[in-house]
């Protein structure tokens, strides 16, 4: 039981740190991120713009909350939801055969490929684990 608790704590810290980093890299360059979203050619321009302003802060805040153990249910819900959408986007890019930058970590360019899909699937399963365990808590 105790080992499970430490396991959840460990993945909370890991996912939290990844999302804090991811949020910060986007916050410092919202226009670059808006352009990255636009490059997916899925949503209209104004959605790319507003997403680029708000999503990075959502990532940062959820990351901090996961790390510190505050509002774990809400933050793991958002992180899981974001990862779910990212996974769908990655699949759509791979299916269409587009070659674009994922926009995952701002200035650190990373092309959308199968390894990215694998990374996000792992992160998604980790954040779902946190979400489920937080929902079981009384």
């Amino acid at each position, binding site marked *: 039981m105790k080992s499970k608790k430490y396991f959840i704590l460990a993945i909370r810290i890991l996912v939290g740190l990844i999302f804090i980093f991811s949020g910060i890299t986007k*916050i410092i360059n*919202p*226009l*670059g991120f*808006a*352009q990255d979203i*636009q490059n997916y050619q899925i949503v209209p*321009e104004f959605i*790319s*713009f507003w997403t*680029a*302003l*708000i*999503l*990075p*802060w*959502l990532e940062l*805040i*959820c990351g901090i*909350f996961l790390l510190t153990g505050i*509002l774990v*249910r*809400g*933050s793991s*819900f*958002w992180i899981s939801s974001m990862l779910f959408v990212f996974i769908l986007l990655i699949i759509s890019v791979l299916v269409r055969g587009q070659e674009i930058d994922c926009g995952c970590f701002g200035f650190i360019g990373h092309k959308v490929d199968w390894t990215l899909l694998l990374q996000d699937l792992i992160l998604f399963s980790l954040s779902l684990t946190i979400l489920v365990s*937080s*929902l*079981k*808590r009384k």
Partner: protein
Amino acid sequence: MRNFLKLTKEAVFILIIASIIGVFFNINLIRKYADYDFKGDFLFLEEDALPELITVYEAEELWQRGEAIFIDSRSEEEFKKGHILGAINIPLNSINSPQDLKNMDISQDKIIIAYCSGGDCKSSFYLAYFLQKAGFRNVKVLEGGWPKWFENGLPWEKN
């Protein structure tokens, strides 16, 4: 059930906080976004992306020496009513990407000065920005645009 209610409350709270901070932190960008029609090119809104301004006096000197090409970004109708002598008309709405400008016969060796109808007009900025992206290195925007040139009694023509 109670946990799901808590989850919803927490999720809504986090979203509100993120939205407020996101809007507050980027208020200047939002203002710019409302002001400009930048055809899906977000990098246009970056501070250093905007081309340099040139005063009407500096522009006139270049015009006299034949060292500049003037590009009028206003509509064809406005252009016909009066424009800087020798200027060419590339209405902004005729351009969809920098590639369109690459295909035009514009000299790379001269300074390009874009202008529009002065005051709040933004089309010369977009055009200049697109020209820069198309690979033209020396692009400027005429401060005050066509009205300033005309008020100063500088050479113009109609057609």
